[in-house]
Every structure is written in C-alpha cells, then in structure tokens.
C-alpha cells in the first residue's frame, strides 16, 4: 500500500522534479542512446501497440534496467525485455522508482523487526512496546476472523443458508462442491475461510468437507491429504496463523484457472453463465440486465450489492466482504431481539 501511495505521489510530480529525485537519490538509471533505440525500435513499437498506447518516437526516453527492478511491468507484459534487460519508457519511470522504494522499505522493515525482537522490545517495554502491541489488536474491524455475530452455524442448516444468505461467489462454490464432491485448492480456501468467518467450527468443518470429499475419494484419503489443510486454516497446524476470510478485493483480483470455481462470478464468469446463475436465484430479467450493466462497467461489488437488494428486498451499504454480505443477510432474515444486539460478543444465537 505504501508503494501505491509513493507511486501516486511520484507520478504527480513534474518531469523535472522526477529527474531531480533520481539524481538526489543516486538511482543508477541511464537513458539508452539513439542508436540503441533505433536497433530495437520495432519491438518497442509492438509493445506500445499491444497496450493501445501511442508508439514511441525519437523524442521518447527509454531506460535500460535489469528486469528484476520492474516486476510489475514484466508481469503484465508491459515492457520489452531482452537478455534480462527491460527497456522502460519514461512514462513508466514511476514503476522503476517505486521498485527501489519498496525494496528499501522492505529491507528497513525486516531490520527493524529483527532489532525489535532482539533488543528494543526489552528496552522499550514501558514506553513503545505497549503502543506497538495495541496497534494490531486495536483494529478489531471487519476482518471476520471472529464473526461479529457470535453465532454457531449448524451443519444441517448449511444448504438453506447457502441458498438464502451466501453471496454468489460462495453459493457457486458450495453447490459445485455438493455436485462434484471436490474443489481445487483456490476454491477450498475461499469457501473454507468464508465458512470459518460465518461461524462454522473446526470439527463441523472437518465433518462437512469429509462428507463431501469422502463421496468421491473415500474418507481415508480425505483424512490423509485434505484434513491437515483445514486444520491449518483454523490455525491449528504449522505456524498457527489464524487465516482471515478473503475480502471482495482479494477475490476479485484472484485468477481462477482450469478446473477452478473460485473468484468473483461478476468478474470471472462469462455474461451467459452469469445470467444463468442469477436466473437460478429467481431474479427477474430487468434486474439481471441492470446487474450485467454494472458488470460491463466493471463495478463488480455494486453488482453484488444489487443482487443482495433484489433477493432481500432491502438496501445495503455496499459489499466489501462476503462475510459482510452474509451477516447483513442474517440480520434481515433472522432479526435479533434488541437486547442481544447490544451484547454482540457474549450472546450466541442458535440457527433456527
């Protein structure tokens, strides 16, 4: 995130200020000569055209840097590379500089962490340490690692809950699992962590996945190959990280491949398939058209909110997280007594 902010700020600087920044920080980027440019000009033009950008001409400046310095440009095939060198146009200078920024920041962070762990936390136990500790825990926020509504979800209610309260991404995964008794890794992570956020306990989760996978491969193979991962997701194995359910942002940015069913249907499904999926939720043609219009304009989360509104008959404040969708849905479909709402952390509700 810091890198994005840096990139933004650098990009808004005037070209002269940018050049001065390069000099001040002694960044070793040199522009290529005219003869070098001429020898690779056709390739540079191809790259520009592949990105629908204006073709470079004799006035354009290009910097020759090792490809390791510009991973984002390489990843997106947004730059010409040859024998390990990337030819970065001055319009993309920001990526170059941001790369340096990020690696310096990263190194500094690692050093700080090590110093902290070995020396400083002792010395600062009265002063800085309490503040630093609180920094991470104070933000309880909606990461849904422990559901705000401390409800326990019963296994037998899952199918109904999936139909009424799961967002489309999780609905799709859930019913695919029921249908094929299998999901690939990406799907298991996305759905599994969502269910954890919903309140499914580890024992129930194991029983659930075992009952599905067991139908296709036998419970022994499930226990041997898959149970470990589920326990890992709940923080019971390995480095014991309690993984948080994926937010919409993360899901939208994922890249489902062959045989995968995770990701955001509004982003990753073809229009035809999305129309069919929404149809199976009994949404009328007009609302489906409206949703697809949002999808065409790449407003995937707005599309999901529209689906919520259409299926629940009420407004929503904007979906950022599948567990948020679920909680809002439960609030509407199963309203609590006001007293219980005040005691979020102590009450449990039993699913009816």
């Amino acid at each position, binding site marked *: 995130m810091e890198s994005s902010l840096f990139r933004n700020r650098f990009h808004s600087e005037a070209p002269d200020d940018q050049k001065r920044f390069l000099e001040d920080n002694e960044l070793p980027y040199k522009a290529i000569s005219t003869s070098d440019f001429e020898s690779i000009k056709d*390739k540079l*033009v*191809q*790259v520009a*055209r*592949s*990105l*629908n950008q204006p073709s470079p001409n004799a006035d354009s400046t290009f910097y020759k840097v090792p*490809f*390791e310095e510009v*991973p*984002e440009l*390489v*990843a*997106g*095939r947004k730059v*010409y*590379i*040859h*024998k*390990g*060198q990337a030819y970065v146009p001055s319009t993309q200078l920001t990526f170059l500089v941001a790369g340096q920024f990020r690696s310096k920041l990263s190194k500094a962070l690692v050093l700080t962490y*090590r*110093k902290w*762990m*070995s020396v400083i936390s002792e010395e600062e136990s009265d002063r800085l340490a309490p503040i630093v500790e609180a920094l991470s825990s104070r933000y309880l926020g909606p990461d849904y690692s422990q559901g705000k509504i401390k409800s326990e979800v019963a296994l037998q209610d899952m199918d109904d809950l999936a139909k009424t309260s799961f967002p489309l991404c999780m609905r799709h995964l859930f019913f695919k699992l029921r249908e094929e008794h299998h999901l690939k890794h990406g799907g298991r992570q996305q759905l599994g962590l969502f269910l954890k956020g919903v309140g499914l306990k580890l024992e129930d989760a194991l029983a659930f996945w075992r009952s599905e996978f067991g139908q296709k491969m036998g419970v022994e193979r499930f226990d*041997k190959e898959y149970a470990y991962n589920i326990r890992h997701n709940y923080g019971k194995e390995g480095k014991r990280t309690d993984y948080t359910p994926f937010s919409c942002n993360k899901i939208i940015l994922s*890249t*489902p*491949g*062959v*045989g*995968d*069913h995770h*990701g955001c*249907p509004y982003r*990753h*499904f*073809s229009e*035809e*398939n999305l129309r069919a999926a929404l149809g199976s939720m009994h949404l009328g043609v007009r609302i489906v058209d409206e949703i697809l219009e949002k999808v065409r304009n790449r407003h995937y989360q707005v599309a999901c909110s529209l689906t919520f509104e259409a299926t629940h008959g009420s407004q929503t404040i904007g979906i950022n997280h599948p567990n948020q969708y679920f909680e809002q849905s439960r609030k509407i479909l199963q309203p609590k007594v006001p007293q219980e709402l005040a005691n979020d952390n102590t009450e449990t509700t039993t699913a009816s």
Partner: protein
Amino acid sequence: MGQPHVDAMEVDSSRNVRDSTTDYMQVDELPAPEQNKPADVFSPEYLRLYYSRLFPYSDMCKWLSYGNDGKHPGCDSSYLNRREFSFTLDHDIYVRYVSFRNASEMESSIRDRCPYKIDIGAVYNVDPAKRTAYASSGSEKVFAPVERELVFDVDMTDYDDIRFCCTGADICLKCWPLMTIAIKVLDTALREDFGFEHILWVYSGRRGVHCWVCDVKARRLTNEQRAAVAEYFRVYKGNENNTKKVSLGGSAMHPSLLRAYVEVLRPFFEDQILSNQGLLQFEERYGKLLDMIQDDGIVAQAQDRWQSSRRSSETDVSVARWKQLKNLLESGKHKGSGLRRCVEEIIFSYTYPRVDFEVSKHMNHLLKAPFCVHPKTGRICVPIDAEECDRFDPTAVPTVADLIEELNKGEASLSNVAQNQKERDISKTSLMKSIELFRTQFLNPLLKSCKADVENSYTEKLHNTQTKLDW
C-alpha cells in the same frame, strides 16, 4: 522376469562383499520364482537396486554445489549442507529438512531410507537440520531461504479441457506435443527475453515436464520477481465458467508472444494439434472453439456447414474446417475489433504453455529431483534435450525395471578399467545417455560458469578489503 530378479541377488553378492549379508537376507524374503507376478515397472526392490547401483549421486552434488565443493579459497563449504531435501518414504511418510554435507552422505542416507520420492527445496541461511536453533524470537537470525533455482512445472492435466485423446494421468504421443510446445516457448523466452543460460528440462515421470533455471541471477530472485516471471507467461485465463479464455488486446502482440506464435504455436496447431485432437471433428469439440468467437453470424455459418456434414468420420476434416473458419473470420474482420485477433486467440488457447503458478512463485517450494523414479509409472525422471525436444518420446523413457534388467544382462560399454564400479554399471544401461546429456548440455557449462563466478567474487572481495585498508 522372476528369474533375473533372483540372479541379481547372487551376482550382486559375489561382487559387493559388503552387501552380501543384506542380499542374502533379501533372497530369503523373495517369493519363489514361479509365484512372481509378471514384471512390474516399479517395486521397492528395483528402487533399492537403483539407488545402490545407478543413481548419480556425485553428478547431483556437483550440480547443487554450484562450484562450492572445490578447493578455491572463495568456496563456501557450507553451501550444499544448507540445501533442503525432502523424502517421501513408503506408507506416505513425509520427511522435510533433510540435508547432506557431500555426495557420500547423500548416498548413504538415500540407500538407507530408500525414499519413493526425493524433492529438492531451497538453500537456506543455515543447515535446515539445525533450523530450530534460530526459531526463538530472542535471536536476531531467522531461518530463511537465500537461494533457489527458478523452476517451472507444466502438467498435462492443466490441458484437460483441450485434449480428447486421453484424460487424467494418461498421456500419449497425440497430446505430448503440448509439452513440446511448452518447452520450446519457455526455453526460448527464458534465454532470449530473460537472458538465462543454464536451463535444465526434466521429464516428470508421468505426465509433464519440469524446468530448472540455475543461473546465479535466477537463484537469487525474490518471490515477487519469480511471480512476475510466471505471470509474464500467463496468457490463458480460463475455466469452465468463462468462454473467452485468451484476450490479446491491442493492435499488435507483445514481441514475446508474437515470436511464440510464429515460431511454435501456429505451426504446431495447424500441422499437428488440429488433426491429433480432431478439434473440429465433432460438435462437442468444435462447439468449444466456436464459443470463443463473438460473432453469432460467423458461428452460425460454421455450424450450419459442419453439423450436417458427412465428413465427420474423416480424421483430417479438422484441417479443412479450420481453413474454412479462417476465411470466415478474415472476411468478417471489418465488422469490429472483436474478431481482429480471433484466430490468434483461438490458437493461443489451444497451445500456449500453462504453467503452475504456485510452484514458480515460492522460493521454498519443493520440487521433485531429476533422476528420481516415479512410483506409479516406474519411469526415471530423465533430462530432456530442449534442442531436440521434438524427438522426445515419453512412452520410451526407461523404467527402473528396464534399467535393472539391462544391468543384469548388459556388458559395460566402457572398457577402461580405471572407471569405478558405478560408471561401469551405468554404462550397461540406457541411463548412460541421459547422464551424458545431463553432463554435456547442462552440468559442464554450468560448472565452468560457477568456477568463474567463485573466482570473480573472491577477487572482488579481496579488492574491497584491500581498498578499505588504504589510507
């Protein structure tokens, strides 16, 4: 096949005195010859013999030491010991953080435990076997990977949506060209675009290939940089939920993609894949392809022509229909940009390499070692010559059973008595040519370059300390 099996015991025990007791015990355990099943391609006994007689420990350690096993003062003698290996033993017992100081330690450990699978992990900052000493938070040091080859894993099951000759774990010579394409495209790009030189391609033993990029720059890439390289090769973004799997935007293709298309993808698609896979022969198959075309008019025309055709029984009908389709698309180009790259997008969908992203991204990912035996097929994970990969035949790769039989029957092809027992044994089998390929194409050039690296960095270090001492 039962007979040679027993003979091997006797021959072995007469030549290797130190093994005679174990061999003798083994003979007692073997079932009587007439009760033996016909030769399996794999058995624990074959594996044991392979690891005791044929597995090339010293070549593997020479490779993985990257020149640090020499006598030059610039060598880091702890280097090999800091590499993680993992063993998968019988009954699926998995052992991580295995390490060795040298080839003879590797040999005794592997012969002792006879792993069904050996994986190679990263080089860490300390011996992985001693990592727990650095785990406590009081220490400034953390146990972390410092070097690791850039690796790629291409698996045939990732192409299941576009191959119709086989499914699942099976492969044949009709779908293997997809792997050939992957090798050609990736090898060229890794050399031309990224400037890497020391690249080893290995058959995975069943249905895919692995690539090990061993240049020092590659070994020092961060996870983010590895992810960037893997992403550079991602073109296919498909699964059953979307229909347009490849999107080549813009008015031209990136030079790397264009090179792949012209040199490899298009010729393979039009000369081999179309007919091998009968891509346009039946409606279930050509339907998939037509789904990628966003012009209903053209799709309808193609369907009309092909649906009622009597030619579907001919195997070369796909080639003819492809020509028809290209003509339709060409004539429709003026209608809009949706069709502009359609032919290319279709070809990319059916041919461009599909790499396993997660394998390449993480330094600490464990990948199967070359020259291992695949426990399900018995085949040896042999190196593939990238320059001759058109001729590689996965169905002709020797199995461990083949090698043991050759060992028993064969005569040494080298008559030089100075060669050690291991070299003589290897030369009796078809493993010899794989090891020679490994050495000439990969290991020798690599070691030459490593030697230069070690010497250069030593000289540089000396120079730096000297200049620091100058007043």
